[in-house]
């Protein structure tokens, strides 16, 4: 009998092993932006920010979207020090309590992306809105995309300097591989280097964030898979760092694709579903899953896909969708391609649903 039980356990372990490699991270995603401590409860809508610290008198958030909506419930009145890192430089915070605007004080920003406020928080539920004044205006804007910094963190300022020089850049997207192993010191270093960037960097994780722990990244920078809208353009970032997408994330993706079906919609992830060089296969583990994902994106009218992982630049189409690989953050470059470090600049006109891309070479 014991022998049969052991056989069953071994079979069950084998059957479940290695198929759910991304599922736990999807569960962590679902918990991002939620915290409760010392009589304060925080809920960030859509998990659009990581709760970095929560005490009876302070709340620190790391934003992963241009605009935030935060619900705070206090058991008793308190003076709250709110800090929002990775914030849009021109974003403004407002607070509503029982349909009445609350007074709040903003401390002068030391850095454009680091906002600090003092709020006299009454007991009950207060809703904070953090958004840029022109968020609802559908008009052309510019953003940059890069990926794969890894061990080249010492030289990442070369990229940030060029980004800071670019006019009209509203934010930067990062398609994973911030670090070499995803350790806490490496993530801290990446965050520290980001202080020099004058616009926020919204990112997802790459396989190199999984070398130490499955959720170090989430504790620093929030969700791996999420969706936001800016000036009428939809942005979806997907966690495919394990060369697959979790079933839970596919469910979220279906909803996000529905929301962006009639608008400009771009999708960012670390591994390309299909590598432009199939023989190399710097791509998802299953060709069939790649086709499944790409079919979903194509049927939903996605207009642009941008990937990292492969340390070069490439422009191609997948399922008819314009696709770019921009893995030029500094990690060991692909030889013989004459590309080197670079990042991608995208100009979007959400009204005309047009985009222009340009590669900016660093070396």
């Amino acid at each position, binding site marked *: 009998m014991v022998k049969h039980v052991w056989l069953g356990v071994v079979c069950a372990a084998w059957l479940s092993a290695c*198929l759910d490699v991304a599922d736990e991270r999807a569960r962590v995603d679902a918990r991002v932006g939620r915290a409760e401590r010392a009589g304060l409860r925080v809920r960030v809508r859509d998990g659009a920010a990581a709760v970095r610290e929560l005490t009876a008198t302070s709340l620190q958030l790391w934003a992963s979207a241009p605009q935030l909506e935060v619900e705070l419930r206090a058991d008793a009145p308190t003076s709250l020090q709110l800090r929002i890192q990775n914030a849009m430089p021109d974003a403004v915070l407002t607070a509503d309590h029982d349909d009445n605007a609350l007074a709040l004080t903003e401390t002068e920003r030391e850095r454009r992306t680091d906002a600090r406020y003092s709020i006299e928080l009454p007991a009950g539920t207060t809703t904070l809105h953090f958004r840029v004044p022109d968020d609802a205006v559908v008009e052309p804007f510019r953003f940059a995309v890069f990926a794969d910094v890894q061990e080249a963190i010492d030289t990442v300022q070369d990229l940030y300097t060029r980004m800071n020089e670019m006019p009209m850049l509203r934010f930067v997207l990062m398609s994973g591989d911030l670090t070499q192993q995803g350790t806490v010191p490496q993530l801290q270093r990446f965050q520290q280097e980001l202080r020099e960037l004058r616009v926020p960097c919204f990112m997802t994780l790459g396989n190199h964030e999984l070398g130490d722990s499955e959720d170090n990244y989430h504790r620093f920078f929030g969700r791996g898979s999420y969706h936001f809208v800016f000036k009428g353009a939809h942005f979806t970032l997907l966690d495919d760092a*394990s060369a697959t997408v979790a079933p839970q994330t596919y469910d979220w993706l279906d909803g996000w694709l529905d929301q962006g079906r009639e608008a400009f919609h771009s999708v960012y992830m670390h591994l390309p579903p299909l590598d*432009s060089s199939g023989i190399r296969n710097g791509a998802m*583990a299953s060709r069939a899953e790649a086709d499944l994902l790409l079919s979903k994106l194509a049927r939903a009218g996605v207009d642009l896909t941008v990937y990292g992982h492969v340390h070069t630049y490439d422009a191609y189409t997948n399922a008819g969708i314009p696709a770019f690989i921009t893995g030029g953050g500094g990690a*060991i470059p692909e030889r013989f391609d004459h590309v080197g470090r670079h990042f991608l600049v995208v100009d979007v006109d959400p009204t005309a649903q047009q985009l222009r891309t340009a590669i900016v070479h660093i070396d």
Partner: protein
Amino acid sequence: MVATGLRSRQRAAKDWRRSKPHASLAHMSLLAWRSAAVAWILLILLPHGAARAQFGANSDEAARAATTATMDGPAPSSESAARAAAVSAPQPLAANASPPVDARGGLPVAAALVLGPAVHGAGHFVAGQTATGWKLVAAEGLGVLATVAGLGALAATGASEKTTAPLAGLAAFGVGLFGTSFLADLYGVVTPPGGIGQPVLRPALLAEAGIQAVIDPVFDYNALAHVNGRTFLGRHSLALEGHFGVDHSNQRLRGIYAYRFIECDAATYIEAELGGVHHRYALEQFAMTFAEAAVSGRLSLGHVAPTLQGAFVDGAFGLAFGGHRYFDRLTESDSMLLIRIAFGLFIGDGGSWTLYYDHRHDGYAAGLKMFGLGSGVLGHVGTALQYFFSPQWGVAVRAETGSAHVLGASVLFRRMRW
């Protein structure tokens, strides 16, 4: 939606990149394949007494004799008894090989298990089979060197698309040599002299029909009907394989023509393969089609050492080119690197057990998902058991793990001649 860009520099770079990619790719692939062949030959030629002296002309004669006996000779009488006798007569693994040697013993097995992971050949050293032990150590060392060289060069080139195929092939060869030398050491000290089975030479027909269960977190199919058949005409063979979804509209068809251009015996040969595969996901509205070309082979380890008779290693290296079709939309091109490595042993009369790695990222098992950094790079692993309980009938079971788990059971049927 219009995508335009200021891309003069990268366009120039891409033009340069695409100027002569396939010439260098083919050249380096050939180099890697030749290196692999030379490595195995070196192992065979390491001191092996009589076997080394006899390997050569005699092997061709033996192979020709075996071929004549089974394929080209006059058809035997129609009596089933005569046919059964012809089928069940074991084919010589290597007519030139040394007599089987018994290296079994508790201590050698313990050494192979405990010391073996570090020193491949430990079991044979303890059993007094020093020459074989050194060969296995050499194979281990060569495997490590090839793996380090392959992976190191891959890292140094940033996995350049021009050099990935040969370098990945070199790394896979190294891992295969490392793994199979460990398994060979264990095999040699566990199995009786001569092994526990014999191969048969090119049966006229080998057919398989069964069912496969698929556990895939992404796709809805759970059960597949599976049919497979391979027929030989001289050294030419044609294999057809089909998978058909039982609970889902999913079909996969694959056909391979092969020519066996080198054949030393029933378990030592090299083949050239040409084929194609089509996989249709009707509900998900896409399909994949690839044409593939590969060189594959099997080496009877009886050529390496007398204690290893009855065991074999398989290898294959090739490329596939094709595309993905998104229904009502368009078709886009793609390519795949094909690598297969296996260790196996013969069981009974023509049956076998194999443990294999397949670099394919298509199909039901596809590539391995792993925790940590390395997910997506590797193909799938699997094991297959074939056992014939009569001259014509047998059973097979198979398990594969990649992006999905695939478990299969089949009935086997074979005819030795038409």
